């Protein structure tokens, strides 16, 4: 019963006494990675924006309002809803960071809009996001799970699915533009968001696994069934959302593969196995390269990689490993 809060003695948080080392590790990672949209020179994208057709512009703005909605939910409801379930005070502190960064993400889409779009276009897109049935359906599915009194581990499942799966029908588009050398500064900003969401999905998934391993087998099975059931429900909505957005530009099938790939990664964050087989989850290499530029896929084994490089011989001393 979540609404009857147990009486707890207020205690000052002591970061020198950790119950879970992962809390400090993730706190450090998130604080070092802190950023604000002002640091990205979005206005350099103005000439590139002008090369998009009206439909491409409308699609891009709509995709970004869809992402704004998810970040808004995670900022104002999702991350705060996880706080009362926190096992350690440090976990609660990490969640406050996650909540705030979601607000930064939501805010940064408005920076993109104010740089590239007219007020009329922006208002139209926000109206669209209020009324789009698929977008509203995914928001509702997640918000229902976050409701007070719900199972803390189910909330974490929904949260990981939002962080590691639901964003990706949207993230696809700036990665696609970037692979065609368009809106590359906007893509830089989106990559910062993607990096944050990856830490969030990893951390919440990790906390889920800690709770899950305490359960007996029957309870684990029930929770796992719930997770896969919710994934199916969200996947159904995402398919429709994707078709509505991307059919006209001819990218729907490519986006769906990206959905499968990310659904599998979201499940892995929870410690579960993949759902979609490799043949439907092999993402367009141009999109993968846009996600992680400068890091080729190393495959010395199959002889296809160009990056079989034996490094310069370096003597390994303690001080060399300067981390």
């Amino acid at each position: 019963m979540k609404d009857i809060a147990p009486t707890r003695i207020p205690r000052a948080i002591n970061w020198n006494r950790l119950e879970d080392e992962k809390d400090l590790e993730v706190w450090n990672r998130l604080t070092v990675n802190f950023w604000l949209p002002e640091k990205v020179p979005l206005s350099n994208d103005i000439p590139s924006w002008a090369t998009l057709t009206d439909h491409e512009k409308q699609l891009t703005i709509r995709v970004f309002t869809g992402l704004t909605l998810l970040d808004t939910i995670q900022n104002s409801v999702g991350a705060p809803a996880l706080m009362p379930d926190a096992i350690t005070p440090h976990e609660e502190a990490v969640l406050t960071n996650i909540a705030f960064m979601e607000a930064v993400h939501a805010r940064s889409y408005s920076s993109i809009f104010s740089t590239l779009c007219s007020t009329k276009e922006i208002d139209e897109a926000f109206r669209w996001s209020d009324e789009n049935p698929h977008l509203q359906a995914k928001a509702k599915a997640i918000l229902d799970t976050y409701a007070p009194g719900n199972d803390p581990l189910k909330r974490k499942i929904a949260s990981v699915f939002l962080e590691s799966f639901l964003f990706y029908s949207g993230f696809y588009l700036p990665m696609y533009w970037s692979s065609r050398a368009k809106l590359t500064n906007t893509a830089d900003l989106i990559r910062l968001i993607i990096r944050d969401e990856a830490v969030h999905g990893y951390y919440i998934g990790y906390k889920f696994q800690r709770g899950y391993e305490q359960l007996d087998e029957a309870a684990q099975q029930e929770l796992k069934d719930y997770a896969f059931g919710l994934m199916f429900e969200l996947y159904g909505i995402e398919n429709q959302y994707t078709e509505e957005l991307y059919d006209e530009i001819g990218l729907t099938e490519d986006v769906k593969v990206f959905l499968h790939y990310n659904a599998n990664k979201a499940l892995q964050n929870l410690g579960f196995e993949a759902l979609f087989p490799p043949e439907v989850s092999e993402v367009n290499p141009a999109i993968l390269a846009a996600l992680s530029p400068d890091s080729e896929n190393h495959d010395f084994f199959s002889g296809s990689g160009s990056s079989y490089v034996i490094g310069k011989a370096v003597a390994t001393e303690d001080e060399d490993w300067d981390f």
Partner: protein
Amino acid sequence: MSRQLPALVYYSSKSGNTHRFVTRLGLPAVRIAECLDAPLPDHSQLTDAFVLICPTYADGQGRGAVPKQVIRFLNDASRRERLVGVIGAGNRNFGATYALSGRIISEKCNVPLLYSFELAGTETDIARTRAGLEKLGDHLCSTAI
């Protein structure tokens, strides 16, 4: 001729992605303990050439990519001389630092970066890694280190 595969050593934090990857590989493997006070795998466990599988924990600038326990493990020259290759793990969502630990270890220890995979790996990653390790085993046999 029975195939001699290189031995495997790996590190996995409590999130367990690399551990799940290694479990699915179904090959014997020695785990480097996560706890900084725990003993490292000793020489009785490391008599042969081995491949190291290592996840990445880098921040946005790439710092901290290689876990401290792995650094401690590799700082012993007698262990390092049996290292024949490294496989890096990570998440592409971290952009340029994806699977960075594999690249760093490859450079520092002068061994090839054999492969990289995301999180706990896909079926394709498992199949490629298993086949690749067999090929590497044959190669090591024929060159008899």
